[in-house]
């Protein structure tokens, strides 16, 4: 308790005194804070209590009143403080106001500067409702998963939603990536870093996307990670791939991994804007691609309906289940080969 207050005090002093950059170097700060807090707590215990005598009733009361001044004390500019104050008030109930200051503290401890924090909160107002303890848990979980300092902050700044995702979900996704998709730990944390939205994806969809790219496109894990496959929605990947395949520029490798033509790299398929893709890789016009997208969307819808019908029929027959389990690996592959002729 007194540690927290002390930390806050230190932050205030540090922030007030630092004129140029408000971003406190993290490693320095953490050790600094930790040592400081230990110091404060161990030595002169009573002496610290007395000056904070006024503060302690505040901390025992669960609601330190959120006010513009307290926000400004934390280091926000006037406009930023106003915005935060407004959005907090607009968030349902008074629950946000209760732990907003602790939430903000955690974010500062993470090493983000006030303007980043404010942008973050704007992007993801749900963060207001996350409790401080949860937040700490989630951040430490991310650290455990291999997100080092620097990349962790960047990821949170770009995709604050990841802090609203429970630890269990994140762990499930990472386990899935390592066990079902056979990514290494390093690769899994790279995926998490580059495409954090992956934690919110349906695991079935994720598996389908992985299997599609692995079997149908013949792309291995290294390239998937390198070229940030998981940033792209399945539909886009499929559409571009099938467009190339039907034009004759992409072939599914045979069981020896060979093709008669050189397949374009995943990089040139995904990480290019549409115009470059059409001109250089597909050698087609935008009109063709536009019509193709419409036709393909219709094809998939009809296939899904067909699958639904087939599954409904299979449910009546018990024997089919065994077949499905045996052919799990190859079944997935053959399912895609079956889909459309090249």
């Amino acid at each position, binding site marked *: 308790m007194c540690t927290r207050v002390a930390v806050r005090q230190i932050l205030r002093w540090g922030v007030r005194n630092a004129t140029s950059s408000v971003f406190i170097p993290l490693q320095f700060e953490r050790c600094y804070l930790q040592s400081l807090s230990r110091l404060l707590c161990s030595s002169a215990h009573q002496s610290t209590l007395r000056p904070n005598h006024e503060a302690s009733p505040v901390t025992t009361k669960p609601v330190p009143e959120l006010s513009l001044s307290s926000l400004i004390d934390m280091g926000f500019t006037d406009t930023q403080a106003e915005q935060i104050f407004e959005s907090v008030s607009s968030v349902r109930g008074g629950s946000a106001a209760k732990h907003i200051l602790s939430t903000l503290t955690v974010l500062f401890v993470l090493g983000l500067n006030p303007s980043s924090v404010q942008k973050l909160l704007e992007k993801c107002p749900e963060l207001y409702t996350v409790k401080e303890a949860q937040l700490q848990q989630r951040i430490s979980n991310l650290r455990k998963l291999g997100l080092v300092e620097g990349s962790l902050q960047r990821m949170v700044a770009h995709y604050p939603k990841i802090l609203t995702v429970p630890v269990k979900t994140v762990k499930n996704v990472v386990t899935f990536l390592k066990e079902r998709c056979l990514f290494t730990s390093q690769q899994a944390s790279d995926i998490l870093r580059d495409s954090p939205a992956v934690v919110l994806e349906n695991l079935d969809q994720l598996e389908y996307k992985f299997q599609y790219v692995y079997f149908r496109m013949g792309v291995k894990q290294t390239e998937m990670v390198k070229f940030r496959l998981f940033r792209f929605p399945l539909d886009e990947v499929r559409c571009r791939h099938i467009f190339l395949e039907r*034009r004759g520029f992409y072939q599914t490798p045979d069981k020896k991994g060979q093709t008669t033509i050189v397949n374009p790299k995943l990089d040139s398929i995904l990480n290019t804007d549409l115009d470059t893709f059409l001109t250089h890789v597909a050698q087609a016009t935008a009109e*063709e691609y536009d019509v*193709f997208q419409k036709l393909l969307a219709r094809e998939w819808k009809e296939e899904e309906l067909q699958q639904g019908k087939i599954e409904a029929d299979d449910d009546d027959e018990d024997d089919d289940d065994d077949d499905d389990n045996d052919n799990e690996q190859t079944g997935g592959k053959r399912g895609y080969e079956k889909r459309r*002729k090249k």
Partner: protein
Amino acid sequence: MRNRCLTAGAKSDRKNLTHGKMALFMDTRLILRKVTDLRCLTPRRYRVKEKWAATHAKHPPTRLALHHFDATYSVQLGKLWPSVRVAMLSERKYGALLNNFCHDAVLVDLQAKGCRDFITNREEDAKPSLEQNSEAEAQEECTDVSLKKSDVDGQEINLSPNIKCLVFPRGDVTRFKPAKPDAYGLLSYYLMDAASVLPCLALDVQEGHNVLDLCAAPGGKTLSLLQSQAIRFLCVNDTSVSRTMRLRKVLHSYVPKQFLTDEKLRITSFDGTKWGDIERNTFDRVLVDVPCTTDRHSLMEDDNNIFNKIRVGERRRLPQLQLELLLAGIEAACPGGEILYSTCTLSQNQNQGVVEQAICLARENHGIQLEAVSLRPLTQMFRNTFHFAPDLHLGEMVIPHLAANFGPIYMCKLKRLT
């Protein structure tokens, strides 16, 4: 599971069939009770064929077809091949051939949905050429090029005003709904590849002509010809009996009985190659829509696919068969008559190759002089609806393209000079 069910069904088939037959001789009430499943009354050869095997063939005919086309057409079409390939592997586009014999006025409804009759709605096509004409006249810059252009545009091909075919605009992938019968049981339109109407237009049937359709089944082109309502007598033939029956059904669904009398129409199932012996120098117009590798079908359907390994011999003999059919058609035409050769393949072997040989052989063996009639005015007219292959030295070809996914259709018009 599936296999077991199917084989069980097959064995009890014969039993069911006889039951059904017996039921027909009994009281009506009993018939209604016995005949529960019409499958038992359908002869097995008409039922939908399904693969009986549990696994897919390693090299299905569609894949063999694709390899074959990749090898041939990449050379023949060059840079155009990828666009044609993707179009043929995607859903085709249909046109609705309007049935003039039907009383329902569907034209307005369909037009409301955005279709237009590509045959009459050629304003967009006509305008540029008209402008060129007026420019040439106004400026009086008589360069050879502008003169030639106005000449070609001046040669407006006579198109039968009665043949109408609706299509959705370029890039629009809306599907047509199936046609509904009117009060007399006739359907209002026939869904077919819009490019298949072009050979019928190119044939240019005029009032009072006798026309022969040598390989007519399943009947789309025959129906288009009948829509012109200018034919005095139409002979319709197809080698296959089953396909001729299908043709009959189509005609009966679209054309009133009074136009299908023996005085107006004759449907036969003779061997088309023998026509030179049957009826020589008879017809004003002959349509020879020969059997070919049907490129689009071969890429999409495994059933009844000519690239099946069993049918290699049949496929290799195709050009020979096509040549014989064309020669028969030439012999059947009267001097001054016109013959239109059409296929639905991109292959030069089956297209220009056959026509060139036919012209040669007709001259050498039968003393018939033939002249190839240019279809350039036609392609000019419809260049905004279809993609035509550029620089074909003989005949014209519609090639598939995603935005105008019609074809492939090859056509070549020959005129008998002697």
